């Protein structure tokens, strides 16, 4: 067991899955010799060759569209889109073919494509490099949307996604790429897609988040415990779609209160969907209105001011206290 960063853990997942299955191949811009702009695919072309680790032309729509065809032909392409903001170039192929081909052909052609992309803010990047638009894909029938939060679950979820027969949008919180290390087992490990993880058990209030926002949430949970002896139940969603509604509802039925945090824009965002589900499934258990702390409905701001756009632990602490005080 080694202590790995998320970048190293993701690399390990791809390496082991490629060793395990010769139909697993990687496609993307600059992923070969360069190892990807974040080095997530470092050394994989050297080990597996340029047929299995393909540097593609600079065309996101082309990458996803050809990956769909390769999947139809029996391969399991893992596509890297350099930044999640560039997946918009591929919207056509994601929506028209990747998500719908199985349905269109009534199961004749499955599309086991994993689309990996770093998402989210916090690394002082130029425009289009800090997007958090997972809600688009959660809205698209036929896709699964997975967002890990740390090295160990990133490795296990990526391995599971590669083995999954459905098309998956796999967003990697790039603010976490090298933020910390975690022990990751040497042996291949997978996690079930579609299951949320209760990171901290608590009885006073439920806090739901995912991806990069798990870090300020964890800080908030620790502060609330230490300063106010408040027991927060912290849930890491891990899979945005299909959502683990049952775990969320069970927690809120227990605590009666809930705060949701994500950096993606608010309107029709993931929090809106969670609130709707809790309203349907746990309304009579609620002691207070559910609160959401999200990105605002504006384009992600330029990086001189991005820190003020992203939710922070102090605000999470304040929102939790406010929700607990509500009567």
């Amino acid at each position, binding site marked *: 067991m080694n202590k790995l960063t998320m970048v190293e853990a993701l690399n390990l997942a791809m390496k082991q899955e490629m060793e395990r299955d010769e139909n697993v*191949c990687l496609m993307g811009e600059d992923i070969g010799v360069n190892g990807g702009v974040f080095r997530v695919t470092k050394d994989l072309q050297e080990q597996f060759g340029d*047929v*299995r680790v*393909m540097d*593609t*032309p600079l*065309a996101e*729509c*082309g990458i*996803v*569209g*050809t*990956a*769909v*065809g*390769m*999947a*139809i*032909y*029996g*391969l399991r392409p893992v596509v890297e889109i350099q930044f999640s903001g560039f997946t918009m170039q591929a919207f*056509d*192929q994601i929506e*028209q*073919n990747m998500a719908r*081909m*199985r*349905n*269109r*052909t*009534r*199961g*004749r*052609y*499955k599309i086991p494509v994993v689309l990996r992309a770093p998402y989210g803010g916090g690394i002082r990047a130029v425009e289009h490099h800090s997007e958090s638009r997972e809600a688009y894909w959660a809205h698209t*029938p*036929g896709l*699964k949307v997975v967002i890990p939060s740390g090295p160990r679950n990133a490795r296990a979820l990526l391995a599971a996604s590669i083995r*999954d*027969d*459905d098309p998956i949008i796999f967003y990697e919180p790039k603010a976490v790429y090298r933020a910390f290390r975690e022990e990751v087992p040497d042996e291949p490990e997978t996690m079930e897609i*579609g299951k949320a993880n209760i990171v901290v058990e608590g009885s006073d209030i439920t806090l739901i988040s995912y991806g990069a926002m798990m870090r300020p949430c964890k800080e908030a949970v620790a502060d609330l415990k230490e300063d106010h002896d408040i027991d927060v139940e912290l849930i890491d969603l891990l899979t945005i779609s*299909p*959502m683990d*509604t*049952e775990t969320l509802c069970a927690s809120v039925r227990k605590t009666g209160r809930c705060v949701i945090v994500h950096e993606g824009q608010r309107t029709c965002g993931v929090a809106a969907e969670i609130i709707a589900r809790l309203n349907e499934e746990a309304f009579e258990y609620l002691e207070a209105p559910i609160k959401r702390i999200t990105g605002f409905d504006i384009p992600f701001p330029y990086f001189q001011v991005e820190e003020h756009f992203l939710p922070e632990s102090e605000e999470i602490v304040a929102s939790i206290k406010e929700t607990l005080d509500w009567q």
Partner: protein
Amino acid sequence: MDANNQDLIDKKSLVEIQSKNTPSAMNTTPIDLGQIEVLQILNEHGEADQGLDPNLDAQTLLSLYKAMVLARAFDHRMLTMQRQGRMGTFAPSIGQEACIIGQVHPLTKDDWFSPSYRSFGAQLMRGWSMEQLMRLWAGFHDGYPPPKGVNDLPFSIVVGSHVLPAVGVGMGMNYKKQKNCVVVNFGDGATSQGAVSEALNFAAVYKAPVIFICENNGWSISTPLKKQSANEILANRGTSFGIPSIRVDGNDILAMICATDEAAKRARAGNGPTFIEAVTYRMSLHTTADDPTVYRDEEEVTPWEARCPIERFKRYLINKNMLDLDKVQEIQETCEQDAINARDAFYKMPPADPKEIFDHLYETIPEELKAQQQEYFKRLQNKGVGQ
């Protein structure tokens, strides 16, 4: 662009272009990069260029003729059904049969075909039944999956969006070191789609065994080619990506077969993609929801009637003593009857099962979706359907 190409732009139509500059389509020399050649073997009087005639055997030639007649009979039957309110909106391929059928004739079962929505004749050649195509266009889910053993992609409704997956299939063949090829067809309008340009580029870069058939039928619904592209020689799209490209008389089935066959041989030999611009004409409607009289002068259509691909091929076969007028009549009647039989069989097929709409979206239906499915079943139950 060389002088030869410039000449072509000045011509009004392909049939005026002589085949004197045409390379042998059957030799194994790869088509030169950067040259737009024009291939015509049968002129509009059905006379074959003796140097280029592939001299296919009588049985093959007759089966091709029947396939063309059947495709048209099927189109007419579908049009009648649509006008009777018993068929959905569909895209007829009347006038394009040579192009559509010629492009799949050289394919084996292990080769793949990725059609646009105007490809009935080709789908019938590939092993789709008329009943299934009727199911498909009448809005039944079970019409869509390619039949067992038929390596076809489903067509796409979003113009040009099927071309990238077709290239991906070709890249998969290279990955698995299999010596097969993919034919993908699309219209002149599709060449304006960015995704089609990306597909051409990927195929060229990866030397994917893909044959791009651009069926230039002159119209994208109401938009004529001159408004679609300032470069009306669409084969130039291919050469600009480094793909050997050829311009073919799309109403000449022999030319289509020869060009596609050579491209298929190149592809299977590892020499990468070929771009074939098949110049043809949309004699009929864009779809049954379209009225071309709003935007198209009927005088423009008339000359193309003389260039009918079926008539032309018929004269060729009569000249070869493989066909006479009695036999022509017999084939016509048989094909019309086949289409009627298919229609009758289609009418007897079971109604759509409204319960199946949640099936096949995922490998295993997620819990949340299962709950929605139950909600939907309840709706059906309340309405008293799908019991």
